[in-house]
């Protein structure tokens, strides 16, 4: 199914290098910048929405996707985590500490029965 809408978001983890938290915040940023009534436009039900979430972080294997599904009030999400985003190292004078993490998120929205 071709995407009809794509939503973009950015999420961060400032100090704990928590890639899952950054991904979660990125999803929320994407979701809550827009209000979508796509299903209604095509005479479909909200449950017909298919959400393909693409997440970019520097350490993709550290993202626990089982923690991400709950953020969606409705719709069927799938998750693809790949290398992307940005890690910002701490300056030397801080004497150690984890990098600040940025996650890039794109949510591609399709509708079952609309191509």
């Amino acid at each position: 199914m071709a995407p009809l809408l794509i939503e973009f978001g950015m999420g961060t983890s400032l100090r704990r290098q928590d890639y899952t938290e950054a991904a979660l915040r990125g999803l929320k940023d994407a979701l809550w910048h827009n209000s979508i009534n796509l299903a209604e436009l095509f005479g479909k039900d909200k449950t017909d929405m298919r959400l393909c979430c693409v997440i970019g972080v520097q350490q993709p294997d550290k993202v626990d996707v089982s923690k991400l599904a709950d953020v969606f009030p409705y719709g069927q999400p799938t998750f693809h985590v790949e290398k992307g985003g940005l890690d910002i190292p701490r300056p030397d004078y801080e004497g150690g500490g984890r990098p600040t993490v940025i996650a890039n998120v794109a949510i591609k929205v399709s509708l079952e029965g609309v191509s």
Partner: protein
Amino acid sequence: MSDAPERRFIIEMGMGNDLYGGDQTKAAARAIEDALRHSSIPLFEVRGLPHDAMRVAVTVAVPNPESVDTEALKSALPRGRVTVRAVEGGLLVRSPASPDGIIMASASVEAYLPAQY
């Protein structure tokens, strides 16, 4: 299809500000840009619809809406049939670094298409 009733299918929302210049139009333009860059609408290409099938209603909210150049803001919307209105809202934030205050603007970009069923 053009007889079909209009349906709003997306509200894009954004935030913009002018930190030091006290420029309400600049803050509003940044809010519109923020709204637009958080989504993409490939459904026109997927469904073979012309962009001007879409009606776009933009509202910007700032502390002093009468100072906003709404005509200038229209050029920020590249697609569809566009109207822009300015209303009172947003936020004026006092700061020692900003004699005119920091102007915070909200923007909503509502897009409508004829019902597609």
